[in-house]
């Protein structure tokens, strides 16, 4: 009689140190080998999209803050652009520049969390604290500007809530010169560490066609080797005025589109963001930042879809207006939600430890997935 073996079902989460929030992964295991992964989501569902239907347009902004809570500025950025398009208003140039600076600072802060927690997921705890040390400086810049450290309510429809602090430009330049060497330090400590490379290279390889079929966007897509960045390919705000590279995965340590590529693309993007911030600070025009803010936001009947390049990928807002003070419908295309769909495809045949590596490299935020 042949021996019968049963597959084990292991629940990872929702209380688990490295599911990055309240995600539950149902793993089907044969020994330590993954047969299937089923993500169960919804533990952080806060009815965001339904709530917006009884809010006025400016009241929605604090809600979008709470979606991707590691990239609040960028959520507001995308929402503001969408409503402005619906209203058909132009914002002053200074506002656009401030938004870009804030957005790119937020991108660095968000990537720092991604990199730091990725190190912690793989057992290296020190890079995690180094990343948070640097993120803290960015949060202080935000705090100086608008008072918030995590949730800002800063970028409003038609403008921003406050002008920059007089010291902001100087301190941001100081931060840039402080932060550049720290990227090198992070590379020495983690990126090119032999054990780290062993753990991530050739693990969770995402081929380009699969990535496109699954609708993957952002750093995860670029790591598979395509130059697709909405900041360049579908420019919004003033991004077409800056000179920056779009880093793509080149399979330096293993295969194109493996976990190491997805990790390293974020390091490279931080450097590009620093370049954008430097240029924006140089060109920052004078002007009033609140003059274009409408007193009453009542867009005409219609619908609009805008997309921006959030730190995690393509963040889209689909807004339907019925001509009243409240939006009829706000649908968010959350990058983390779409990116999470690839888990099963990537994890099959790997080990439990690799699930952590793959999940960390996709860099999800549960607030955005569940909304």
């Amino acid at each position, binding site marked *: 009689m042949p021996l019968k073996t049963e597959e084990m079902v292991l629940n990872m989460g929702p209380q688990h140190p490295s599911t990055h929030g309240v995600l539950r992964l149902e793993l089907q295991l044969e020994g*330590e080998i993954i047969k299937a992964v089923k993500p169960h989501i919804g533990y952080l569902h806060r009815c965001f999209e339904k709530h917006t239907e009884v809010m006025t347009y400016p009241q929605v902004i604090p809600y979008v803050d709470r979606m991707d809570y590691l990239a609040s500025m960028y959520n507001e950025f995308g929402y503001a652009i969408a409503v402005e398009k619906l209203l058909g208003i132009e914002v002053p140039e200074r506002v656009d520049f401030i938004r870009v600076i804030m957005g790119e600072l937020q991108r660095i802060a968000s990537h720092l969390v991604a990199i730091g927690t990725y190190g912690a997921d793989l057992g*290296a705890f020190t890079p995690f604290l180094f990343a948070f040390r640097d993120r803290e400086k960015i949060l202080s810049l935000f705090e100086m500007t608008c008072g918030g450290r995590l949730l800002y309510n800063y970028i409003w429809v038609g403008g921003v809530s406050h002008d920059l602090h007089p010291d902001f430009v100087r301190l941001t330049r100081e931060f840039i010169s402080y932060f550049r060497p720290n990227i090198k330090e992070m590379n020495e400590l983690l990126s090119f560490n032999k*054990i*780290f490379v062993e753990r991530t290279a050739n693990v969770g390889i995402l081929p380009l066609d699969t990535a496109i079929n699954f609708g993957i966007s952002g750093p995860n897509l670029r790591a598979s080797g395509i130059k697709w960045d909405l900041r360049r390919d579908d420019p919004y705000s003033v991004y077409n005025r800056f000179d920056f590279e779009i880093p793509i995965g080149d399979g330096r340590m293993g295969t194109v589109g493996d976990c190491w590529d997805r990790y390293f693309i974020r390091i490279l993007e931080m450097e590009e963001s620093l370049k954008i911030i430097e240029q924006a600070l140089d060109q920052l025009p004078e002007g009033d930042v609140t003059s274009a803010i409408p007193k009453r936001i009542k867009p005409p009947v219609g619908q609009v879809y805008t997309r921006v390049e959030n730190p995690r990928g393509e963040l889209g807002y689909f807004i339907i207006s019925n001509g009243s003070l409240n939006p009829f419908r706000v649908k968010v295309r959350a990058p983390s939600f779409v990116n999470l769909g690839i888990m099963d495809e990537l994890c099959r045949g790997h080990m*439990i*430890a690799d699930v*952590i590596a793959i999940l960390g490299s996709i860099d999800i935020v549960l607030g955005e997935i569940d909304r």
Partner: protein
Amino acid sequence: MIYDFLLKLTGSEIAAGFIQSLLPLFVFILPFALFAVLLERKVSAHMQDRLGPMRTGYHGILQTVADIIKLVQKEDIVPTNSDKPLFNIAPVLVFTGSYAAFAAIPFSSAFIGSNIDLGLFFIVAVSGLVVAGILMAGWASNNKYTLLGAMRSAAQVISYEIPTMLVILTIVMMTGTLNLTTLSELQTGYFWNWMILGGPVAGLVKLAFIPSMFIGFVIIYISTLAEVNRTPFDIPEAESELVSGYHTEYSGMKFAMFFLAEYANMFAVSAIVAAVFFGGYQSPIGYLGNTLDILWLIPIEQFFWFTFKGVFFVFVQMWLRWTLPRLRVDQLMALCWKYLIPIAFVNLLIVGLITVL
């Protein structure tokens, strides 16, 4: 020496033996665990641009005391569906395994729990108990994570005992003794008599031994790291994968026993490395007691040197832990079976040839 002194003091062989066997526990393991936990916190904090504990006492020196008090006060939770007898025995077994190893560790020429001829063998054998305890804990908790942790741990500890034993065998072949005191006495004099620098032989043979000894040291250090489940080999208790591995379900004092055992084990393996390769309790630069002609000072100096060497290797373990990421379980096995064991074997043959010639 301690035994004779105790015998004179108590007048009873049983009492003397009993007190002597308890001495390492109270004189050394408990204070060391307190110290090591604080050291770990401070080392990690300063490596990460933090301060670490600062509130309890001057620069947080009472932090571990506070931790222990907290752990003692905690409710002792036994999961409903656990295998209760095994669940209760496991921490004791793990603690016993690591504590028993201290019996044969020579802290100085006058202070050794039991000066048996099979010292090295005894330590390695008794450490095997720890695996049984870990397996018990993992199984009895009736939790998939703990079971996975325990299975990984058993596989890891057993595989890494092989390279450790092969290196120890190399040394035994050179010196012809398993007794740790004799081994330490052999390396007397100055630091060039340490095994890492070829041992107490003279001439060209010594030079021939040095590369083999360095390789042996690296192998034994890596394997002992794996045996005590420290990063980069902390896979059994990989926090980010298996919550905290085999002791996930333990709380209160039972958890503290695992914790204590881990730190005791860290020192035990460091002590083996120090005793085998770095002259045991011998001073590298001669004794003050000899110079001043105060003979009772020598054992105290020896105790200092031994503790210093042990704590130094413990520090290196912490340093590695806060620098390196963690290997995956199959990579860990590959490292052991594909690299460490073959190299250790070749090393053994080379040393054997040199010794015969």
